């Protein structure tokens, strides 16, 4: 593999296992950056706006506002961000507060509905509460995703076996939201690891299909923050004489 092939084919149908991945040198980072930037640019296309009105999930504007704050606070002077013409000053309206099931009401001894659980986790992360419970549930979700490379709408007792259709794009995006929020608050590389795999999977899906089911602004923000965090880590830790994208 001399390219960024992890997003080339639909990874819901053909999951990556990432085992013994081949070392490609510094230029591999360029392939990664180009691939993510291509997706971010494709999501900015105005023709997709019409699909976004129909999205039901109320959490998206709140997430976007939170992620946008991170972007402004940490990366507003980043040249890569500027080159993408991404509008970080865009006004985001958060219409009303919705009620979420308390995170403490979920139990692995009962069947768990994943959309409800993820909404509660994300809500806790946005209000910065229940940190231990957030990690508890996130670790279960990370484990399930890493083993099967799928997320199911519900999990049976003991959180081992998934049930239902594993092709629901919004569930993958919601886990990605939770992971980016967790990484930003803890800097634990384990969560960036799973986020990179989830982003690969989401980016491998056709944009035309994706925008019908997920917020393109939320997805763009996640990909941007992931990319800029990786860029920052590389800049601080890798010496390179060549002018790679992260320089």
């Amino acid at each position, binding site marked *: 593999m001399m390219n960024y092939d992890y997003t080339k084919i639909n990874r819901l149908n053909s999951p990556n296992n990432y085992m*013994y991945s081949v*070392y490609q040198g510094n230029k*591999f980072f360029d392939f*990664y950056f180009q691939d993510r930037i291509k997706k971010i640019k494709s999501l900015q296309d105005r023709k997709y706006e019409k699909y976004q009105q129909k999205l039901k999930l109320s959490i998206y504007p709140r997430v976007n506002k939170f992620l946008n704050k991170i972007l402004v606070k940490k990366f507003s002077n980043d040249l890569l961000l500027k080159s993408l013409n991404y509008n970080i000053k865009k006004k985001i309206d958060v219409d009303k507060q919705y009620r979420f099931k308390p995170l403490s009401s979920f139990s692995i001894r009962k069947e768990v509905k994943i959309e409800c659980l993820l909404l509660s986790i994300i809500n806790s992360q946005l209000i910065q509460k229940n940190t231990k419970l957030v990690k508890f549930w996130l*670790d279960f979700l990370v484990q399930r995703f890493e083993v099967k490379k799928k997320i199911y709408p519900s999990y049976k007792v003991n959180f081992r076996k998934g049930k239902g259709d594993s092709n629901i794009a919004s569930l993958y995006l919601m886990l990605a939201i939770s992971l980016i929020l967790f990484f930003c608050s803890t800097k634990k590389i384990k969560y960036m*690891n799973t986020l990179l795999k989830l982003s690969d999977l989401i980016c491998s899906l056709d944009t035309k299909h994706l925008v019908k089911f997920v917020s393109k602004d939320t997805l763009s923000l996640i990909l941007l923050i992931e990319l800029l965090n990786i860029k920052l*880590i590389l800049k601080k*830790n890798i*010496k390179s004489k060549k002018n790679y994208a992260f320089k």
Partner: protein
Amino acid sequence: MHLNKIGMILADTYRTKCYLRALIKNKLSVNYALILLNSKNTIIAGQKKITSKNEIVKLLKEAKINFEVINNTNINDNKVIERIKKRSEKVFIFSGYGGAILKEKILNIEKNFLHVHGGYLPDYKGSTTNYYSLINENKLGASAIFLTKDIDSGPILLRKKFAAPKNRKLIDYKYDSEIRSRVLISCLKTYISLKKWKFEKKNNLGGETFFIIHPVLKHLAILSNRKIT
């Protein structure tokens, strides 16, 4: 020194060859080895290339270890379990194919399976953990454990940390196997001198479980030469 209560279960991998070379170098031999032969023409995780079993056979003969070959790569297969069950050795050094997890049916046959995990336990459980420890502390680790049903959570016989190698591109097939071999030999030498298994840490609970490293982070671990900030 011949260890007559110890056997080995061996996949055709670089790690197995490393273990056998280390035994030969330290003049140690075990009583028996079972080779799990990959007779298909496809590479299994942990194999860099398909080789004939001859290289392993040559090393086993050099180490004066009696062996059998089974055309089966699955440690949990009943035919493999039956072969191990009927042996007299109580402890088997396990060097299987990548990602092989021993299920309860083999763990319940009243044998102990000595595995050297590539990572310092209990801090680094799971897969490819040495890349994570390079990122977090610029070190590699290896831990000898007896396998239990909970992954990487069996009692720790011995664990060691190692300095990061100069050429990090060779971690997967070279350094990872070499540091595991060093821990294995130290562990066996302690067993010989004490005439029993010594446990450095019986309680191996807690720690963090990691999953196969993403290529972006793997490249970061290889190309950086210090703890990541």
